[in-house]
């Protein structure tokens, strides 16, 4: 889309701009996130650090628009995922009237919220996925792991699945001959293996990958390979009703197009472009009437015979689940597939979560303290796994943690968050060796280091005081009550996050005099 902002050669995958999140509680309005902006480039992993209660997890949840309402709401901001601003229709969803901090009336527009949820359900899990802190709590206890991963697969790749099933069913001798020729031409086993894997998943025969590979390793006789391949493939053809499959594929295609049109419609509404709104509305109406006229029988059949009609899809998805579980290094994926979450360990569950998150190859992965609840060895394994996945799929990762060691290990760039404000942002080396903001230096000094034990003062330095209550945060810079370098201006004005060195931003009056303008708003 046009909106995706090109800077340099890399494209930004996730852009959060000017985010403001509030929680309306009986004790007052919690000013959880204020004017938060950051971006993540393709393949980059961005770390967000801060103490507990600083707003890290809220940021992660807000990035997927999953803030529980009530009590929370995103008040303002733009979040670009894959170039589309998911908060396009934010202002229109609700009207918030603040009579007093304890009496906030929120009027929700049900129809628009429904539409927003519909839009979001197509984006979440497809373009952006999320891994949570507590693997034990994050999986449904009454569904098997396989079912849960399968659900994610079937939600987002229905068209691709129908295409590959159709391909499998129409696979003929010529196609196989072509396949065999290309594979025979491969110079070494490694590249051939990869190619086989890709072909097999293209033709919905993932479980044939291994016999195929064995075949090429053991023989070079084209005739023999050809015969064997044909035999192997013919065992996999189920003889499905092609017409029905094609109908399903076209139906899902239409559904996907409808979703895209709704994205366009919301964008047009945001720009108040009447002509475009009408045009898109007409297109949506067209698709809807097409579904009504051509697919009425199909929809009705799906309503009652879903179990039978989805069987080929389910079978395909089962194969895909096995593939994913193997990819995240789970031993005995067949067994794990049928296991319930309580039967597995935390590390295993977190692997399953990662498998689930990657089921539709998302461009962005949000990891909300993925290793906090795990023991140290498992932590290392999970981090390795995430790095590996990051490399193979070139996925951008938003990594949220309070563990600076993990940040040093995983991230390219780091943002430090305090009291709902981003106070410093720099490449990871800069943060560790050249921290600017007093809060960041405080954090760095609080890391236990082995060599310090031999120094005179063995005491670990800590930042005095505690995280402010965000219902009534300190005036000006939110860190000033705990700051060693407090000046008069700190309690009066709020510092702005500005670039103080190349690629290094900080919000502190020690380095810049720039003040963030505080605007009077309806919602404080």
């Amino acid at each position, binding site marked *: 889309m046009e909106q995706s902002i090109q800077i340099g050669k890399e494209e930004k995958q996730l852009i959060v701009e000017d985010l403001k999140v509030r929680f309306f509680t009986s004790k007052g309005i919690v000013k959880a996130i204020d004017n938060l902006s950051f971006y993540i480039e393709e393949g980059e992993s961005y770390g967000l650090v801060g103490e507990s209660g600083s707003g890290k997890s809220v940021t992660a949840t807000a990035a997927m628009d999953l803030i529980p309402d009530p009590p929370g709401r995103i008040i303002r901001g733009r979040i670009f995922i894959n170039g589309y601003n998911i908060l396009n229709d934010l202002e229109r969803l609700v009207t918030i009237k603040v009579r007093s901090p304890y009496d906030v009336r929120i009027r929700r527009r049900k129809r628009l919220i429904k539409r927003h949820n519909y839009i979001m359900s197509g*984006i979440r*899990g497809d373009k952006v996925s999320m891994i949570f802190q507590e693997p034990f709590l*994050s999986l449904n206890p009454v569904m098997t792991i396989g079912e849960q991963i399968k659900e994610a697969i079937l939600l*987002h790749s229905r068209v691709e699945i129908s295409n590959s099933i159709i391909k499998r069913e129409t696979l003929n001798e010529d196609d196989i001959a072509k396949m065999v020729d290309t594979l025979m031409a491969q110079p070494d086993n490694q590249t051939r293996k990869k190619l086989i894997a890709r072909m097999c998943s293209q033709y919905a025969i993932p479980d044939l990958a291994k016999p195929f590979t064995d075949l090429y390793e053991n023989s070079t006789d084209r005739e023999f390979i050809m015969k064997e391949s044909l035999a192997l493939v013919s065992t996999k053809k189920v003889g499905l009703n092609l017409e029905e499959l094609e109908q399903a594929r076209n139906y899902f295609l239409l559904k996907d197009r409808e979703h895209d049109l709704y994205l366009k419609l919301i964008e047009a509404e945001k720009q108040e472009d009447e002509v475009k709104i009408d045009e898109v509305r007409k297109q949506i109406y067209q698709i809807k009437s097409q579904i009504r006229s051509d697919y009425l029988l199909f929809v009705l059949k799906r309503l009652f015979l879903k179990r039978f009609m989805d069987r080929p899809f389910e079978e395909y998805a089962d194969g895909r689940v096995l593939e994913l579980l193997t990819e995240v290094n789970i031993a005995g994926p067949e067994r794990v597939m049928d296991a*319930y979450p309580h039967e597995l360990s935390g590390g295993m569950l977190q692997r399953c979560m990662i498998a689930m998150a990657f089921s539709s190859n998302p461009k962005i992965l949000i990891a909300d303290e993925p290793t906090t609840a795990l023991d140290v060895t498992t932590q290392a394994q999970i981090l390795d796994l995430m790095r590996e996945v990051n490399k193979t799929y070139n996925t951008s990762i938003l990594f949220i943690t309070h563990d600076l060691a993990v940040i040093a290990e995983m991230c390219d760039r780091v943002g430090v968050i305090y009291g709902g404000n981003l106070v410093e942002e720099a490449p990871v080396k800069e943060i560790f060796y050249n921290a600017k903001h007093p809060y960041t230096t405080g954090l760095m000094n609080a890391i236990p280091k082995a060599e310090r034990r031999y120094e005179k003062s063995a005491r670990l330095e800590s930042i005095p005081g505690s995280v402010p209550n965000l219902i009534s945060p300190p005036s000006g810079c939110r860190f000033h009550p705990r700051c060693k370098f407090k000046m008069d201006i700190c309690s009066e004005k709020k510092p702005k996050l500005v670039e103080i060195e190349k690629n290094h931003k900080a919000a502190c009056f020690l380095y810049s005099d720039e003040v963030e303008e505080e605007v009077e708003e309806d919602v404080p």
Partner: protein
Amino acid sequence: MELKYFIIRRGLIIIPTLMGLTVLVFILLWAFGPYQIAVAFNPDLHGNHGLATLANYLDQQGFSAAVINGQLQFTNPIGSYFRFVADLFTGNWGQVTFPSRVSTMTAIGVFIPNTIQLALGATILSVIIAIPLGTYIGARPNTPADAVGRIFSLSGYALPAFWLGYILIALFANHGIGLVASAFPYSGSGVAGATGVPIGEFGLSDPTHILLIDSLLAGNLSLFVSAVAHLVLPVVTITYGILAGILRFIRAGMVDAAGQEFIKTARAKGVPERLVIKKHIRKNALLPTVTVLGLLISGLLGGVVTVEIVFNYLGIGYLAVNFALGVQVWGILALTFVFGLILMITNLLVDVVYAFLDPRIRY
């Protein structure tokens, strides 16, 4: 596989429970006076005697307290208990004089189908209504719909069934204030004075004693309609109470499940809101509800007794009240035993169903 062993093990627990039940029933037997017990164990003595004249009568017949004590082995309670238990399990339940002079087994056997019909109908109806309604309310807590639902369920919880029954009669039957005059019949099951079906013992229809089924078997549609009409008020009365109980729990379960982390996961992977509610939240909310349903069915037994009296409905509740009023020793003992059995079986079923539904149950 493991589930099978769980069911067997759970089934074995029935044995000690059953022993406890028999002890309880045996103790109950001792709550009666010696003359009443004498009559219970000597069916020939049955007659319409007041208690005072009964004593005189028995004395005339040569049944002194000492004779009775000897006959019933009162001096040997253990032996007496085992004889009693043997009687209970062989179905040798003595005789009753209500509704006529028959063996207790026959009386209960004839009247129980009607009660099963009432209880089962009410349970099924309330589950069918409660699940979608509870899902709807539970998905939108603290909204006007929720408030209405809560008032409804709280009132159902608070209103005693017999009182509600009288109110319904007043409103819908040709009785009392008659808001909707004679919309529904309020007494009996419709079999009284009915023609076209075979009428068996105690004026109940044959062969199943359930008019609903018997009228269909006889091909008598108008009688079937009348049977349904007769069922409406009692079933509604019982349903209201059970429905209220289940509804409260489904709602609470839904609200509780909706706040869990895995619901966030489901949303994060892009499950549409409708499916989040139906698939993820509701499935977890229904688990505690099964337990509650078991408890409610136990409570239903008590409810059935009063409701059957209010609606003059010929079931075991009706029987139980008349047994108690007429001090029919064997009738009271046998019904206590039957109610106990029903409770035990219900609890067994609930445990097994729960194990099926919740994979976390360890066998």
